[in-house]
């Protein structure tokens, strides 16, 4: 310990420890696997039952009614052919992005604090991409023709039209789902082995033995595993910048005022990350308390998430400014009309002001240390960001469609109960899957967290280098 004191930097330069309370490796393993092994607490059931109801009753009802009847049950109608289905699609894709950013990009930049929240963020990605992918599939109207989008030889001798961004979307979203699931699963293999070795019942042992696939923790295994992890993290980082860009291209290749802008791909990527960080705060803040993980997901980690949210928020604010500036600077009367109507129009101006109020206004609160260290404030801000970003997508999609170039072509859009019901259903399905994940799978990357502890470094005094390996 003397050695440790000598080596320690001065207090003002010291970094917050990844895990508080200096548990040894054994105690840390107990702590991290406790929730997946312990009794199911009451709060879990209180959250799970309504989520499961939404997922298994409301969701299929709205889904099947729409598929059997037609897109007409939604509020979509000329001229607003993209309604809540596309708004929610972009919103869910956005929620996914923060998970990939945290688990992949922060891994490549060697941010040790990501180990504690990475797995939970990845699970968020996987489940929200599932929800996102559903929307375009049913938005086409005749869901049984979805296979037309895949290059399958067929009796009509027709192939997909690969020049369209809408087609690229099919590839992008499916790839995103597959790759983020692979990344999530591969990260869990060593932790499945942990749960296998700790299991006390035969059924748990069997299940986790299958999932761990015979993982022993051999140095040769780790060697290949680490390489594969870096490669996957690199590929996932590319996906962060690709998937939402392609969604953005769906819009900016259209001629419509308000959509036809080169800033859209970047705009959608940053918007997605911003929205996703909001969701990370909403999910992590209650779970760290209820699962007893306060010393693992520390206040310092939440502070860092808040700072990243602020950065994303500031870029978003800059993009809003640019959009309005370019609309004015272009001199195009249609562009000017659309943008002035976002804030001063008649039908949807409330949405425009909610968007500015939250994404530009509320985000600035994160400048203050006091706000960033209040979990309640962060939770509320996270919720508001989700609402703000949902509103943003509504303003972009509906706001540009309802008044296009010909006044004779104008119309209004109002979602119906089936639009809202389907959204509630996807929210329920998302939270149901998430709660199941938290309960049954290793929700914190056990081996990764152990790997960034000071004891894990063979050259660190706590790693035992100076006393012959005996502590």
């Amino acid at each position, binding site marked *: 310990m003397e050695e440790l004191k000598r080596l320690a930097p001065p207090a003002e330069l010291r970094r917050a420890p990844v895990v508080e309370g200096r548990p040894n*490796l*054994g105690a840390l*393993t107990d702590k991290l696997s406790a929730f997946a092994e312990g009794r199911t607490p009451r709060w879990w059931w209180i959250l799970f039952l309504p989520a499961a109801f939404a997922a298994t009753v409301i969701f299929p009802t709205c889904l099947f009614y729409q598929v059997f009847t037609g897109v007409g049950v939604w509020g979509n109608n000329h001229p607003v052919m993209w309604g809540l289905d596309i708004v929610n699609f972009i919103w869910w894709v956005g929620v996914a992005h923060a998970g990939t950013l945290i688990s992949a990009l922060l891994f490549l930049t060697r941010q040790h604090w990501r180990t504690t929240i990475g797995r939970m963020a990845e699970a968020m990605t996987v489940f929200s991409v599932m929800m996102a992918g559903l929307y375009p599939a049913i938005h086409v109207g005749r869901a049984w023709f979805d296979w037309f989008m895949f*290059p399958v030889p067929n009796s009509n001798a*027709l*192939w997909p*039209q*690969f*020049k*369209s*961004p809408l*087609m*690229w979307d099919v*590839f*992008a979203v499916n*790839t995103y789902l*597959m790759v983020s699931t*692979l*990344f999530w699963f*591969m990260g869990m293999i*060593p932790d499945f*082995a*942990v749960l296998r*070795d*700790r299991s006390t019942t035969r059924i748990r042992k069997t299940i986790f033995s299958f999932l761990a*696939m*015979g*993982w*022993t*923790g*051999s*140095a*040769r*295994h*780790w*060697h*290949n*595993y*680490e*390489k*594969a992890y870096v*490669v996957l993290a690199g*590929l996932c980082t*590319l996906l962060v910048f*690709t998937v939402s860009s*392609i969604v953005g291209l769906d819009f900016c290749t259209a001629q419509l005022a308000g959509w036809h802008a080169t800033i859209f791909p970047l705009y959608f990527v940053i918007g997605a990350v911003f929205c996703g960080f909001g969701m990370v705060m909403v999910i992590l803040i209650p779970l760290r308390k209820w699962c007893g993980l306060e010393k693992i997901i520390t206040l310092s980690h939440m502070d860092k998430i808040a700072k990243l949210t602020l950065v994303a928020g500031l870029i978003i604010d800059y993009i809003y400014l640019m959009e309005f500036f370019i609309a004015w600077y272009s001199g195009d009367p249609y562009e000017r009309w659309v943008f002035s109507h976002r804030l001063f129009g008649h039908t949807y101006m409330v949405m425009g002001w909610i968007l500015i109020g939250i994404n530009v206004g509320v985000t600035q609160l994160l400048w203050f240390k006091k706000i960033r260290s209040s979990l309640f404030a962060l939770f509320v801000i996270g919720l508001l960001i989700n609402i703000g970003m949902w509103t943003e997508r509504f303003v972009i999609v509906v706001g540009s469609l309802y008044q296009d170039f010909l006044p004779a072509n104008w119309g209004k859009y109002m979602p119906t109960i089936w639009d809202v019901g389907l959204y509630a259903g996807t929210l329920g399905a998302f939270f149901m899957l998430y709660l199941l994940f938290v309960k049954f799978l290793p929700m914190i990357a056990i*081996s*990764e967290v*152990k790997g960034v502890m000071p*004891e*894990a*470094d*063979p*050259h660190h005094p706590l*790693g*035992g280098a100076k006393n*012959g*390996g*005996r*502590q």
Partner: protein
Amino acid sequence: MSGKIYGLIAEFDSPAAILRAAEKVRDAGYRRWDTFTPFPIHGMDKVMKLGNSLVGWVSLAMGAGAFASVVGLIWYCNAFDYPLIVGGKPMFSPPMTFVPAYILLIMGGAFGALLGMLGLNQLPRLHHPLLDKKRFELASRDKFFLVIGAQDEKFCLMETKKLLESIGGAHVEIVEDKD
């Protein structure tokens, strides 16, 4: 050499101890040995002379293969099998294939990374002789194990056991191969 013996296992307490032990086992001239740890130990790949992992190449091959196949597929679909004029653009031009091909490159690369990792590690396997050892359950917790395989040319029950004990290994035991 007995077919029943898989090897000798020794237990260590810290990352530094297993790293020093690994250096000594290597210097003693053993070839078929391995360490088992709850997390990757920094510097162990150098001690064990593992070199560069081939996973990156598997991933690259699958990614590049996916990229090329998508370019080929788009040419086949939109320019050869059923030529389709869209907006007066050429039937086929390389830039138009980029986005789908690039996305599938990511997909191929990701599958390559996972399958390459599993293949090179010879996973999945349903059983491993070490998993029979009760104490080996700690390898995923907080203990560090070193195993010298019976297949090694230098393996000798007495000598190897002596070596493992002399470098600080605790609970030196025989691992049986029941298969």
